[in-house]
């Protein structure tokens, strides 16, 4: 049943979702309905993490989430990186560590790490943060530069 009053908060702005089919995925809503292409489409089976966004502050696979199921919620994507303190912090760490190459997995990594910092705090042990990123695949960097970025994103980073 199409509920034309459906709405979502995306990067701080309200997005109305008139005429949206019930089976639409959050990934497609963001990319094709709202034009926010920063969130990347990779495997669409929940295995690569490229489509990770925050829903109410928690990292979420947007390919395996029905938009209707998060209606009324607050979604943060890489496109909103400049307005979110954790996303900004993680982006700065990725820049300093040059923790990306092709960049396709990067939005997912940045959002997932920002989510972990929100969830666990900026002084969370580095092992816990790394463990929490195992759902994000990167084929370019070999993760070494990403590990350096994780270390830089923590509170007590030098």
């Amino acid at each position, binding site marked *: *049943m199409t509920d034309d009053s459906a709405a979502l908060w995306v990067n701080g702005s309200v997005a109305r979702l008139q005429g949206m*089919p*019930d*089976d639409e*995925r959050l990934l497609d809503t963001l990319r094709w309905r709202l034009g926010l292409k920063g969130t990347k489409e990779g495997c*669409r*089976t*929940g*295995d690569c*993490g490229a489509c*990770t966004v925050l*829903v109410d502050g*928690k*990292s*979420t*696979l947007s390919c*395996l*989430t*029905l938009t*209707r*199921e998060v209606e009324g919620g607050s979604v943060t994507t890489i496109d909103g990186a400049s307005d979110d303190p954790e996303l900004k912090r993680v982006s700065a760490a990725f820049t300093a560590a040059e923790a990306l190459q092709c960049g396709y997995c990067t939005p997912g990594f940045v959002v*997932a790490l920002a*989510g*972990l910092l929100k969830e666990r705090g900026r002084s969370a042990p580095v092992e816990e943060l790394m463990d*929490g*990123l*195992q*759902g*994000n*695949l990167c084929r370019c960097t070999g993760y070494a530069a990403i590990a350096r970025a994780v270390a830089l994103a923590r509170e007590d980073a030098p």
Partner: protein
Amino acid sequence: MPPFELVTPATVDEAIASLRAIAGSGPAVIAGGTDLLLDIDDGRTAPGRVVSLRRLPWRTLDWTDGALTVGSTLPLRSLEDDPDLPRRLPGLWQSVHAVGSVALRHRATLGGNLGRAAPASDLIPMLLALDAEVDLVGPDGSRRLSVDAFIRSSRRTTLAPGELIRSVRVPESRPSAFLWQRVRPANDISQIAVAVAFSPTRPGWSIAVGGMPPRPVLLTDVARRLGHGRPSEELLRDACDRASREVGLASDQRASEEYRRRLVGTLLGRAVRAVVASGEVPS
């Protein structure tokens, strides 16, 4: 991939009613959706209606007298983050932590995992070894049954038309361990998973093995042979041999049957030793 209608009932009665309204044509229930949506995408199921549980008051977690009750729609990440879980039910914490990624666990639920009855579920073996029970609610009222009785086969449960999983209950705190082997340690499906728990009240061991079709199984006879406390090395070795010989296994693209037998024996020995090492198993 035809579109489906999503209904989001506000009460349990409404939810049951909306399931009944099209009973027979295969309505699906969505909790986190991380498994159901994959099946829909691959065309393995094509429900005309999907009933969402998100407005039901089931995102709960409660410890009463050592028993844990988890609402069926509580995200696995919230269960994992419960401060008492690693101490009271270490094996359950390990098995929850083994599921997918953090982002997946933010949406996936215990109820969904049981309801979908995936043959390779990492949670079901541990729930079996903990003698967990499911509380169901349906058109004919409520009932409670063991996870063992609830899971019938691969992707099949004893859930009746119109019935929903309300919660999962683990009756007591138990020293426990969950060990698995995968081709790739993270983000993979277990070739073999072994769940072991020691019940202080019975007292005695429970063993369950997962990672192979059609469903995770309890090894009741092997567990009984471990006795009522710390088993001797000889007893343990015998139990491991027996388990690896007797459990029903098959070959698939993740592992051969032979190799799985090897893993069952090895992981069982390690899991029992890990539980003994907790110091909570009497000699």
